[in-house]
């Protein structure tokens, strides 16, 4: 066996053992500009408040990216979660009503199994 193959076995989980994930592309409507850190803190707060520590750990939430749109305060981001916890994560996103006292509304636009799929815009 060559070295490269052994290394790849050590570094990557075999496909059957990897987590099944879903990537949620979401849109934030906001009264003022918010940054990624503030938003992430609020997402975790909401998740903890709704499902507790156990539920939050099961959903495996990770914020991949968040960008403000150029002309408005609104933004678009991508969130990763476990494939069977999409509805729970969606509910906790919907429960976010403000970030640092600025009112916000969050909506999931697209759900995909890959980051590429989630970031691809719908064909016009």
């Amino acid at each position: 066996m060559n070295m490269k193959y052994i290394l790849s076995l050590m570094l990557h989980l075999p496909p059957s053992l990897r987590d099944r994930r879903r990537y949620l592309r979401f849109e934030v409507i906001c009264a003022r500009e918010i940054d990624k850190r503030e938003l992430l803190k609020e997402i975790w707060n909401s998740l903890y408040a709704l499902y507790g520590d156990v539920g939050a750990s099961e959903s495996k939430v990770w914020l991949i990216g968040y960008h403000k749109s150029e002309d408005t305060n609104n933004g678009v981001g991508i969130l990763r979660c476990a494939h069977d916890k999409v509805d729970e994560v969606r509910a906790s996103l919907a429960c976010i009503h403000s970030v640092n006292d600025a009112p916000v509304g969050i909506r999931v636009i697209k759900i995909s199994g890959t980051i590429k799929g989630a970031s691809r815009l719908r064909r016009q």
Partner: protein
Amino acid sequence: MLNYFDLNVHAYPETDASVEELLSVAKRYGYTGIAIINHDEVVQEQKESNAVFYGVEMKANSVSDLKRKIKLHWGKVSLLAVHGGNDKINRAAVENPKVDILAHPCGEKGEGGLNHVLARYAAENGVAIDFNMNSIIHSRRGERARLLGKMREILKLVRKYNAPMILTTHARSIYDLRAPQEMIALAALFGMNKEEATGALCDIPSGVLEKRWKKERDVEIR
């Protein structure tokens, strides 16, 4: 293609949000129409659009006050809703066939509720029971636990007597609006399944607007 409706939105002059703003955000979220029902007043400057419906949410402190208000608004607006919460008001609302919607029967903080008698009246008179998602979104901890518990109780009764139920946002600004799929996820928090929640956002609200529920049940409106 499903037609989603949100039948409880509060707009200017009660709040700062204008009807145009609310409608444009709601359309982007995938709603077909919204109903503006401000507390105790009808919006004067009505925008001509087939996606906006106007009604009134009557806030009464006694049963006779509610009766007087129903008499005042009856026939003038397309939707009559009652601001629920108090047990006596809830009862007076579901007993009256002129009423279309009983908004948040468990109150905004979970103080009131429904019982089997009221649920049966609601089913007979075609009064839609409204589940207020805004109160779930804006409350935390004990208060939210109490609200979800109340809603679970109401849902059980509504299922048993087959009363119409609707999901609404009670939006007071564009940030309070939630997309239909988010509403379905929120409804799952108190045990409503996907089919029921979709019905409560599409079929039942359109039936309420067309008064289909009243016709099907042969409700006599005197």
